[in-house]
Every structure is written in structure tokens, then in C-alpha cells.
């Protein structure tokens, strides 16, 4: 967008559209956010249960290998051979005992240490590496990793605060509610590419009231609706958010009366989809956490999932869903989680609408970088709310985003 002024309007109740479309801003986000002092979500321990198990993932534009070593530790390694830069690992997941680059067979252990270089000592007295070549200095780039109750996070910066400080007690409380230390069992993945800026995905979860208007399925069956008892809570930075809510009834009240999509007569032919059992302390049937910068940790009824956001330039992102349960789930509970998974993912009864609307948002704003969005529902402040009729979590988010980006 060339020379257009990239400035922020007064206050957090207006969001300029160039932050969703500008290539330069995207590149600054990679440096200041994803490669900066943050804890990026990279997966769940149940994806790599045994020594040697690995998965490939991404932080910003960089390919990352997450692997369990022989001692049971979890390592995050940049997927780039120290020799000539080859992307070593092409598989999405699997198991290996060592990591070998196919090009010249430089070989690394599961902690990323360089173990072997062919022809290191030369052949018949010819060639070989210089005597002072350092194996220790030529390992894979290693990220700092933190594992908490089965969730794996990694950071590229030395300045990242300890994980607990980074999340704050309030968000950690919600985190530990879902990832409570029990072993997790992996149910599967879904992956989709959405032609929208990555921040719009976080916003979508922080924007509490759209669910009552866009998602007819939610609205009708009361799974998530403005008239539900609910809370919107942020950490001190405003970047992490936890939304929690208690399922409402299929009834007509002053909330549902304002929703053009509400139909009190709709009934499911197979109500087993909504056969929800209480499994956590407290009455909340929905807790959606957006953990800065790249993951949504969610409970909707009995379906549990993470959604990892992988940015792909300013105008696109990938959403990698991982659905899970607990190792102590009985067969009935697993069946329930799998049935309720129909709500979510690229064909989700609910989340399908989000993928569609986010792409339309991007299309709407693409040609208008200097226009701005209005975020005034529930006032102009950034304090917690005990209801959903508010865009407060968006204002708090952009307060935090401006701090991080220096805007």
C-alpha cells in the first residue's frame, strides 16, 4: 500500500484496516510477535507419546520439528539443516531415532546436536573438514520449550518471561481447568486454510456477541448466546482472553427476540448431539481461551480442542485443529466427544460460518487500508465484563497489540 500513513486512530475503539492487509506490518509482526518474546503453542504431548515421535509444525513462516527424545523430554528444533539450509523433515509426523538430512547426510540427535558429518576426516587423506570444525557449534537451532499439563509451547527469544508469568494466574486457572494434568488422548486433526488475516481468527473468538447473530445453530439451541450467563476476562496485557458461558434454554426472551435467526420451534431429529454431561468444576459449558499469539484452547460442551493459527502472509492463515479427550474417558465419553466435534472444524455446524465470514471480512477491507472498524459495543473501555453484549475483549486485545507493535 506504498506511502499511505500507517497510524493508529485515537483510542482502542477504532481498528485501522491496514493492520490486516499490509505486507510490511505482517513482516514486523513475525519479528515482534512470533519470533519475539512470546510462548507459541506447538502441539500436545499426546501427539508425540514415545521417544523418537515427532510432529512438524510452524511458528510464523518457520518450519519447526517437535520431537520427544530418549529421556522423554520434548524438543523444538528449527527444520533447517545447519549445513546448506535444507528442510530436513518433510513428513507431518512420524518417528525417528536420529535426524538425518538427505542431501549430505549430516546427522543430528533428537536434541538437535550434530552427531555425524560424512567424510569428516577426509577420504584417503584428501579433503575432510578443517581440524577446528566445531560439531557443537553446528547443531540445529533449538528453541526453548515449556510443557504444562500436556500442552507444548516454544519460544525463540531469550527475553520471554517464564510461562506462568506470561499467562498470568487468571488465564492459567482456565488453562488448568481443561488441561488439568490428566493424560490426554488424541482424537484427530482437521486443517483448513482461510483467506483472512490471522488476527481476525483471534478476534472472532474474542468477539462474544457475533455467536448470537451469525451462528443460528448456537442461537437456537442456546449453546452460546448473549442471554447466557457469561464472563469475559483478560490478563493484564489484554492479549489473552477467557470467555466462559453457561448454556441457556431454547426460550423466547428479550435477547432471543432481537435475534432474527432465533427459531424456538427447531428440534433435532437426533438429540444425541446435545447430550452434554458436566465434567468440570463450575457450571460453565463453554470456555474459549485465546492464548497469545497463536492458539485457541476450547471447551464447547464436551468437545475439547486446540486451534493453532499459522499465519500465511497478511491475507491468509491456516487453522490446525487438534481434538482430544482424556486417557481415562470411557467409550461413551469418547463417542460423545466425537459426535459433538460436528460443531467444530472446517465443516462444523458452527465454525463453518466463521471461516466463511472471516474471508468476507478480508475481501471487504482489502481495498480500504485507511478505513477503520468500529468496536464500541459495551463502551470504549477495556475492563472485564460479566456479560457477552460487549466488544471489550477486542479493545483490550488491540491495547496489547499496540504495545507489542509500538503503534
Amino acid at each position, binding site marked *: 500500500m506504498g506511502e499511505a500513513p500507517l497510524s493508529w486512530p485515537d483510542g482502542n475503539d477504532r481498528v485501522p484496516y491496514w493492520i490486516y492487509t499490509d505486507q510490511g506490518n505482517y513482516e514486523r509482526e513475525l519479528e515482534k510477535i512470533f519470533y519475539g518474546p512470546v510462548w507459541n503453542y506447538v502441539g500436545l504431548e499426546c501427539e508425540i507419546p514415545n521417544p523418537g515421535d515427532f510432529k512438524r509444525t510452524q511458528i510464523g513462516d518457520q518450519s519447526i520439528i517437535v520431537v520427544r527424545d530418549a529421556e522423554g523430554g520434548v524438543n523444538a528444533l528449527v527444520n533447517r539443516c545447519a549445513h546448506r539450509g535444507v528442510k530436513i523433515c518433510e513428513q507431518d509426523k512420524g518417528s525417528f531415532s536420529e535426524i538425518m538430512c538427505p542431501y549430505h547426510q549430516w546427522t543430528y540427535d533428537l536434541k538437535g546436536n550434530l552427531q555425524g558429518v560424512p567424510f569428516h576426516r577426509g577420504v584417503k587423506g584428501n579433503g575432510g573438514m578443517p581440524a577446528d570444525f566445531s560439531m557443537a557449534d553446528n547443531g540445529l537451532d533449538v528453541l526453548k520449550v515449556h510443557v504444562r499439563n500436556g500442552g507444548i509451547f516454544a519460544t525463540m527469544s531469550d527475553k520471554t518471561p517464564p510461562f506462568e508469568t506470561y499467562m498470568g494466574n487468571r488465564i492459567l486457572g482456565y488453562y488448568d481447568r481443561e488441561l488439568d494434568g490428566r493424560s490426554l488422548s488424541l*482424537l484427530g*486433526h482437521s486443517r*483448513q486454510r482461510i483467506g483472512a488475516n490471522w488476527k481476525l481468527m483471534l478476534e472472532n473468538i474474542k468477539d462474544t456477541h457475533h455467536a448470537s447473530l451469525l451462528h*443460528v*445453530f448456537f442461537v*437456537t439451541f442456546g449453546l452460546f448466546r448473549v442471554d447466557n450467563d457469561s464472563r469475559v476476562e483478560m490478563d493484564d496485557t489484554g492479549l489473552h482472553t477467557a470467555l466462559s458461558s453457561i448454556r441457556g434454554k431454547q426460550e423466547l426472551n428479550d435477547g432471543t427476540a432481537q435475534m432474527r435467526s432465533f427459531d424456538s420451534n427447531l428440534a433435532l431429529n437426533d438429540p444425541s448431539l446435545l447430550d452434554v454431561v458436566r465434567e468440570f468444576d463450575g457450571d460453565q459449558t463453554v470456555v474459549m481461551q485465546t492464548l497469545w499469539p497463536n492458539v485457541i484452547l476450547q471447551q464447547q460442551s464436551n468437545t475439547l480442542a486446540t486451534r493453532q493459527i499459522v499465519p500465511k502472509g497478511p491475507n491468509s492463515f491456516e487453522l490446525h485443529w487438534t481434538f482430544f479427550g482424556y486417557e481415562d474417558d470411557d467409550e461413551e465419553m469418547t463417542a460423545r466427544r466425537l459426535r459433538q466435534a460436528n460443531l467444530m472444524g472446517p*465443516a462444523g455446524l458452527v465454525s*463453518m460460518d466463521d471461516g466463511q465470514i472471516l474471508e468476507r471480512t478480508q475481501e471487504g477491507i482489502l481495498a480500504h487500508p485507511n478505513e477503520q472498524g468500529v468496536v464500541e459495543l459495551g463502551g470504549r473501555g477495556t475492563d472485564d465484563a460479566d456479560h457477552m453484549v460487549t466488544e471489550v475483549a477486542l479493545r483490550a486485545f488491540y491495547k496489547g497489540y499496540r504495545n507489542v507493535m509500538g503503534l
Partner: protein
Amino acid sequence: MTITPELRSEIADLANAYALAIDDGELDRWPRFFASDCLYKIIAKENFDSGLPLGLLMCDSQGMLQDRMEAFSKLNVFGPRSWRHMLGAVYTTGSEKEISARTNFVIFETLAGKDTHILCAGEYRDIIIREHGALKFRERLCVYDTTMIPNSIVRPI
């Protein structure tokens, strides 16, 4: 109890009629292709190959098929589009009583004002039975190879 040429052609008709009903937007016909006791599941190849149970979409009763059909038709929000199922030849094994079939598919999706793209590629893995005289899917697994679904799947496949 072998699969005769006549039966083979009846199975091919079922596969084609199913795809056409969806491409024609006649979703109300979709549940009728299934047996009264049925399983329909769209599943990523990565899950299928690893023995992970998660479906992108899963219906294990006629009621769930009906509910999905109504959601696709009335509740979900998405823009206008055309779909074309391209089917490979049906490969059948098993017996007349319980037919196993595998069919490759590619679905082309065309959104209003945009280029045609591939929505997904994969294969149907079916178990087909005869119920009240007609062939029905007792089980239809749609195993898709596509790593990243372009946005969403807004109809059954």
C-alpha cells in the same frame, strides 16, 4: 452370491446418483441414499492412516443425517457456489449381501466471481447393502487426501 455385471452397474448408478444429488443441490435426497442403520464420515487421510477416529463430519444415524441436511440447507451461512463431483470407476469386492466398494473422487468448487478450485480429493470406502429392494450405503467413509481444506466444506461430499 458373487457380484454380477448387473449388480456392478447398479452399484455404479448408486455412486453416480449420490454425487449428482449433491451437485444438483438436492440435499433433501441425501439421507435417502443411506440404510436405516448407517455411518457417514468425512475423515482426513492423516487420521484414517493413524487410526484416529475424528471425522471432519460424522453422522451415525438417519436422524443425524437429517439434522445435517437441514443445517446445510437452512442454518449455515455461506456464499453461492457450484460443486462438481468427479468420480473414478467403482471397484467392488465382497458379496451380494454386503458389498465393499472403493471409488476415487475429486470435487471442484466454483464460488461466485472466483476461479474454480479443487475442494478435496480422496476416495469413498463404502459398505453397501440392499434394504427394501434398493441399494443403500450402510457405511460411507470419505477419506480425503487434501492437507488444507480451502476454507470450509459446506455440503456433504
